[in-house]
Every structure is written in C-alpha cells, then in structure tokens.
C-alpha cells in the first residue's frame, strides 16, 4: 500500500469543478503521474498526482475538507 499525502495546506476537491465527474474513483487503475484530486489554497489550484501505479484503494479525506501538509489523501494498492 502506498499513501499519497498532501504537500501543502488547502481545501481538497476530487472534481475539477462543480458538476464535473471526479478525477478518479475507488477501484480505478492508477498510473504514475495521474491526477487524483486538487488542493485549492487562496484561489490557486495544485493537482495531487499519484507517484505510484496500482489500484485506488480509498480516499482518506472528503470533498471540500481542509488538509494540512503531510495529511493522507489517497491510498493506492501498488502493482
């Protein structure tokens, strides 16, 4: 299992915008560099990308939650 953590503080979103489908869902096959969500801080957006390949096991934060640097965002089952 690999945990993708937030490198920065901000608000976590799974979707690129309101009414849009999520970047990724539980059970999806994930590639290295794939965008899993975005963190908004003061109107600037940073994509959260996977640094491993595998299957998306779970999201550790909810849509719209506040995160701090180092907080777990997503767990990926490697392979």
């Amino acid at each position, binding site marked *: 299992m690999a945990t993708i953590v937030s490198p920065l*503080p901000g608000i976590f979103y799974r979707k690129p*915008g309101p009414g849009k489908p999520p970047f990724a869902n539980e059970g999806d096959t994930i590639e290295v560099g794939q965008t899993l969500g975005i963190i908004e*801080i*003061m*109107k*600037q957006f940073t994509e959260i990308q996977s640094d491993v390949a595998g299957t998306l096991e779970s999201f550790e934060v909810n849509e719209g939650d*506040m995160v701090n640097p180092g907080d777990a965002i997503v767990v990926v089952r490697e392979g």
Partner: protein
Amino acid sequence: MKKLLIANRGEIAVRIARTAREMGIETLLVASEPDAESLAALSADNVVVVGPAPAPASYLNQDAIIAAALDNGCDAVHPGYGFLSENAVFARKVADAGLIWVGPNADAIEMMGNKSMARESARKAGVPVLRGSDGPLEPAADAVDVARGIGYPLVVKASAGGGGRGIRFVQSEDELLATIEMARGEAASVFGDPTVYLERFVQHARHVEVQVLGDGKSFIHLGDRDCSMQRRSQKVMEEAPAPDLPDGVRQTIRESSVELARECGYSGAGTVEFLYDPVNQEAAFIEMNTRIQVEHPITEQITGIDLIREQLLIAFTGAMSFSQDDVKFSGHAIECRINAEDPDNNFFPSPGLITAMQWPSGVGIRVDTGVEAGSTVSPYYDSMLAKLIVHADTRESAIEAMLAALDETRIEGVKTTIPVHKRLLGRPEFAAVSHHSKFIETVADLMGAK
C-alpha cells in the same frame, strides 16, 4: 438613519464601513464563520454570520445575504469588488427585494459582462477598439477570412470571460481553427457559453484605465491609472495618473470612457480598461468593470474625492456631489497590493497567523488593510491582505516614498509580496515606463522561481 449591508470581507469591507460611518450610515456586515471576529467585523456596526468558510456557502450565498438584509432592516447592499459585485442576477434580486443596489443596474452589469456586447457598445460610443471580429464569431462564419482581416498574432476570447480568463493566443493561421474549437469547448464548460470572438494581439502592451462616475444624468471621469505591473493577468502594483501617455491618447480614453458611461445611462462607479500600445501610441478598449476597483485609492489620493462616498450618494440620493469642472488632479499616487504569498517560491500562498504587524506613517501614506496582528489569514479566500498607497508631488518622489514606506512595513507570521514590490520599484524599466503587462513573468529574479 439609513442602514447599509456590506456583502464582502477584508480591506474593502473595512473601507466601506469607514466611509459609511463618516456619512452617518449604520452598517451590517455579512461574514462567514471564520470571519465573525475579523477586522471588517469589528469595523461594522453589526455582524451577521451567513454561512461556513467556503464562499459559495457564505459570501456568494445570495438568498442568505438578502434575508440578512431584510431581517435586519437594511436599506441598501454594497457588494464591494469580487464575489457578487458583477453578478446581474444578484443585483436584480436585491432590487426585487425592495433594496437599493449600490452599483449600476443589472442590465448594465449584464451588458458589460458579455465581452463581445461590451466591445460593440464601446465601438458605438466612439471608444477605440482593437481590430477584431466586431461581435461574436458566428459558428457559420469563415474564421480564416475574418482572421486575415484582423492580422496575426491574435487572440480568441470567450464572450463570457474577462479578468484575464478565457483567452487563447494564436500565432499563425495553421493554429487558428483548432484553437477556436478548443476555446469554444472551454468557454462552454467554464462559463456556460461557447461564444467566442477574435481580437488583434498587442505585444508589450501597457494596461491603462479610466475611472468614471455616473448618476444616470451626468457622467464624468476621475482621470486614469496604469496597472501594467501584473502577474498572470492579476494586478500587482498600480499608479495614477498613467505615466508617459501622449496628451491625445489620454484625452481620447478619458472622453470616450465618459461617452460609454453616457451611452449606458450609467449609475455608479465604473472603470473602463484599455490596452495601450506604446510603439504605435494607440489605446484600445479591453472591458468595463461595473464596480469599485481594488486600486480606487490612488484615484482618491490624486483627486481628493472619496469614491465610496460618491457611490453611496448616487445610490441613496440619485446624484453625485460634483461636476467634471470640480475634479482637480494633484501629484502622483502608487499602490502596492500586499499579498500573503511567497515571492521567493513562485508566489506560493502563505496562509496562517499574523504574529506582528507594523505599518508606515507620515505625510502622503495611506494603508487600507483587512488584517491586523492576531488575524488568521484563511486558505479559503484571496491572498490580498492590504494595500499600501503613497501620494507625492511627482512620480519619482512617489517611488522613493513607497520604497521608504515598504522598508518601514513589518508583517510577521506569513510570507508577503513586500520584497517583490521593492524589486519592482527599483527596476530601471519601471523608472523609464518601458515595462508592460507581461514584464514580471519575463524577469526571472522578479519571479523568484526556484
């Protein structure tokens, strides 16, 4: 006594509350939960918490704001800038609720919000416009033919865009059709309207703008400003009057902006923005902002006129307090936007607790701040903390005074853009007015990229 609802936060909410108090108008601030004890909340006479931190639940929550106004016996709503200030639907709801909207009516907001309609109104009023598709590029039109008439390079702009958003660059004909298609798709998904138009692209343009006021009967200007120091189309530093502008150009943009206001029967404060091409000494219309601008204090400093007071007078009495002949210009003013960003790390946002704050003082120095020591800078909102404004006899002395004022400013706990302002003010290009709206991005040591 009149009662005014302030539908904003930060420095502009503090600013509006200050003038309202001077005029004997009671204020009610609507705030989000984390802003309940902000400097703006302390500045207003009353505070109502309308929702949690995310703006859609609080500062953009139209029904909650109108309910707060009605429940608390307010007469009028001042939207400030950003948030709901250029939202025609909200302006209409406010009026329909029997409240006074401090700004132009919803029709004027709507018209200026549609960038191709705005361009067409500007052209009719005699405002110089860039060569372009004169209205929307019809899906059936021969885009290649239209583009040849405009010339390259050009930009494809979303009609519903603005503020630097929804713009795509086209260097040559082979990129044209694919770019238009992409721009239409993007405009449809981002702005909900696929309409685009074409406009000539000006290399190394400066950004100049004219402050106008109207009360539906008379229409005047309060001079011009230059806002060419921008980063990613966001203004960083502004000055008034615009330096190094030929007299003929200055006269044209001022007078035609007044004509545009007259054409719309404009009521309130507005800003007509222009691109200025220093090589060909030509100005061309960009857009009109139908609200108070962030940089309005530099106009106040060189005219001695309180723009918020005029907005409130126009809204409450239907008339402004002076005519064009009463407007006298004096000296030069500069404004630096102090943002909670790290200029040595690509302007990365820097929220957190402000542990210490010390502002400069002295003749010609003005500070419009939304925070104080002990304030927490929230990750939920814009990074602008405050505006530092200086006014002096000449541009040279204003630059010196601003450098001294920045040296005297101390903000601890969060990173700020103060260092980048010092670098900008010390640049020979700024002194020579050879900078342009992409200048910051082209100078590596200003960007501080690691």
